[in-house]
């Protein structure tokens, strides 16, 4: 359909009341998506937002493009089915950390292996929000957000490391309170031809009293501002950069795939699970 009038941010909003908690990090993600969609002038009919279950799962209902709100953990298979069957559609997936790295982890790895042209935006808040604050797979050991009866006894998974190992060709991290920056990441991810993963640090104001806005504001920095070149131009350049203590030589094969890809990485140093050396990726 030929569209003459330029779409504005408001054209991408639905009249469904956004029922996230006041102050939720998801508002920043939603805002960044509206802006990115408007910047790219995505056709609403040709754009599909797929989601799983949880607070993030409601995202499609707030965006005036086609929305497919699926099952817990299964957003990626739906998105792959949609994209493979109709490659003309732009498919953006919104999932939670429990959705993607807990119940749906097998699909997360499999999408990396396949490198299907999808964007995966993970709402990373270390808790299961909609079931009232249980520990999610991104919560580090010994931490005890306020809903937990006891400190967490399991280690956190590193989403960025897992994405690299799985073979994603665009890997990024954003922060829900830096909307402009996140918007640019989302745009790059949509334009990237291949499986793109954006880990978004997203404070849960109701259940996570540790990873607050204040917590992130003090720690977050932008790799690109520090002069990081996101492009992996050759196997050699990839090999040179990862410090040995983090990427073992057995992971070089993963890097081989990255030779052909963008590796735009806004590594925002955070908290918890990522040793400082991670910034190389």
């Amino acid at each position, binding site marked *: 359909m030929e569209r003459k009038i330029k779409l504005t941010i408001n054209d991408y909003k*639905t009249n*469904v009341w956004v029922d996230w908690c006041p102050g939720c990090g998801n508002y920043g993600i939603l805002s960044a998506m509206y802006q990115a969609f408007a910047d790219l002038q995505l056709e*609403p*009919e*040709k754009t*599909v937002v*797929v989601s799983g*279950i949880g607070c993030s799962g*409601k995202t*499609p*209902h707030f965006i*005036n*493009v*086609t*929305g*497919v*709100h*699926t*099952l817990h*953990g*299964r957003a*990626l*298979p*739906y*998105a*792959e*089915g*949609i994209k*493979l*069957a*109709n490659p*003309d*559609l732009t498919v953006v997936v919104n999932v939670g950390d429990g959705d993607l790295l807990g119940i749906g982890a*097998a*699909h997360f*790895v*499999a999408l990396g292996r396949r490198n299907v042209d999808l964007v995966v935006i993970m709402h990373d808040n270390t808790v299961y929000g909609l079931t009232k604050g249980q520990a999610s797979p991104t919560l580090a050991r010994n931490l005890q957000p306020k809903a937990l009866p006891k400190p967490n006894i399991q280690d956190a998974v590193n989403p960025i490391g897992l994405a690299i190992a799985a073979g994603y060709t665009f890997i990024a991290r954003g922060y829900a309170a830096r909307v402009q920056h996140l918007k640019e990441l989302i745009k790059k991810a949509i334009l990237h031809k291949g499986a793109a993963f954006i880990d978004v640090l997203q404070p849960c104001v109701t259940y996570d009293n540790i990873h607050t806005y204040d917590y992130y504001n003090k720690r977050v920095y932008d790799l690109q501002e520090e002069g990081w070149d996101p492009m992996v131009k050759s196997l050699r350049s990839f090999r040179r950069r990862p410090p040995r203590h983090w990427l073992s030589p057995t992971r070089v094969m993963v890097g081989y795939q990255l030779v052909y890809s963008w590796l735009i990485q806004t590594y925002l140093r955070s908290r918890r699970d990522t040793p400082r050396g991670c910034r190389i990726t």
Partner: protein
Amino acid sequence: MNELRYIIGGPQGGGLETTSEILSWAFAWSGYGIISDREYFSNIKGRHSYVHATVSATELPKHLTYPVDIVAAMDAETVFTHFNDLRDGGYLIYNSDDDSVNYASIPSMERELRDRLSEQFKGLGLDGTVKSVVKYLQGNRKVRVVALSFKELLMEIQKREGIVPSQASRYISTILVGAVAAITDISQESIDYSLRRRFTREDVYRHNRAMANIVIDLVKGQFGSELKLDPPKIGVRSILVASGNDAIAMAKVVAGVRFQAYYPITPAADESFTLEEYETLGGEGSIIIFQTEDELAAINAAIGAALTGVRSSVATSGPGFDLMVEGLGWAGHNEVPVVVTYYQRGGPSTGQPTRGGQSDLLSSVFASHGEYPRIVLASGDHEEAFYDAIDAFNYAETYQVPVIHLVDKFLANTIATIPMPNLDNVRITRGVLAPRGLKEYKRFDLSSPISPRAFLGDYVMWYTGDEHDEYGHINEDPINRVRMMNKRMSKLDIIDREIPEERRYSYFGPDRPDILLVGWGFVKGVAVKAVEELTEEGIGAGYYHIRMFIPFPRNSLTKFANEVGANNLIAVEHNYMAQASKLVAMNTGIMINKSIVKYTGRPMYVHELVNAVKNVLRGSTREVVSYGA
């Protein structure tokens, strides 16, 4: 003779599947009908497997039975496992190099069989060697023994064709092909046709042909062709030889399937492999075969694809289906047409991965949390499976419901001759589609139970697993809930109204039967034959074949039951509970109190079904049959 039955056995991985294909093609090429069942362990190499076939000069057979006319054995284990299956005066083809092998020394044989043999050999006074069994068969059972030294034959072929010794054992399966061909006198051309079709490499084809010829000459010279079949008089011009897996794969191509997702599982995976051979990407007629990381991904990717408007399906078996149930609920709730081809095997849990069963009927009909409409079809033979697979897509799209197409391992792995499908009568119906250019589109428009469907890309629309409003947005309003539930569930009434009763069942037997067997799925072939035999013996038996469980053939079954009398109904099924009889009770209120069931994982055979029916007539209410290795 009009009908020939044989068993060919050997170690798994020893070329048995090839033997089965070659003989099936050869008989079919000569104009005979054949059904060839393959029984095997969950194992790649070494355990005992066998092919059990019926060849007919007068019909395209759908039944298997015992005893058999020929047992052809690649190894000693086959002789021990199947010598009891041989009729008096039948033929045993075996490797005479195995004469001194004792049953007790065969490590792949399961202890239970060994114990039963030990008991039998003690009773017969046999020492437990192959030789002793052969002598017993010759002396007491008038069996004609074709003793071939495989070693000598292999040396002969090595010499003639210049094959390296390490490769020679590949030709063992062809020894058996040659021996069966000789005894039954199938033409040289038909064997030649089959070998050429099977072996595309010229030298391999040549070696196999040479091997077959050596054996044919040798056996014919010694034994003649006593089991020569009468000239075929089936009268079907054009015949398809296919396994159940392949028949359904072909039907899916005909139905225009564009997306098939699967995770490897026996006995469903071969269907997807066959489809993948024809996979084309891009352009008209493209088919994507998507091997996923698990069945959860398979069903949900298939649903995703279906949302874009392509015909989409999965093929799976019990353990995989269990994982798909949540996704199926999403499809039911969101009114997505998706087809599940469900190959039943023995359950529960891993159960009997390579054996057949019909124990997933209730699961297919009920598996779900919450309530949503679905259609359940069950095919009784290859031909039904072909047409049912096509109808499954038509029904799915017409009523916007998930469709479960139930088949089983028996069908999947059985090669059969079927009349060439008539595609002139095949129709593709895609159901109500939304027109283009609407100002506003509501995917779940409440003005009719079946809302016009648009595909992703046509309009902005929403889907959600939550209860939703007409737009597909989450909605928890109680009145809306009632409307949406009514919309979805009332499709069952529409389905019941629109799919004709005759489509849901078939009946075989005399006009006014005295007793009525009620069955479904692979029971069909054996039941139809059993009914014929019983009628010949003066017992007025009919067979009522259920082909759809949702919608259920309520009226016709009630009518039959009233005529025959509920007390004269016998459920015949491959499960413990006689599951279909429970659905009969649920749908009609008729209680079927007599059952003949089999749950060994092997198919039911005509001889045991006929016997079981007679036992029921003598007063038994439950017969559990268990013949077959």
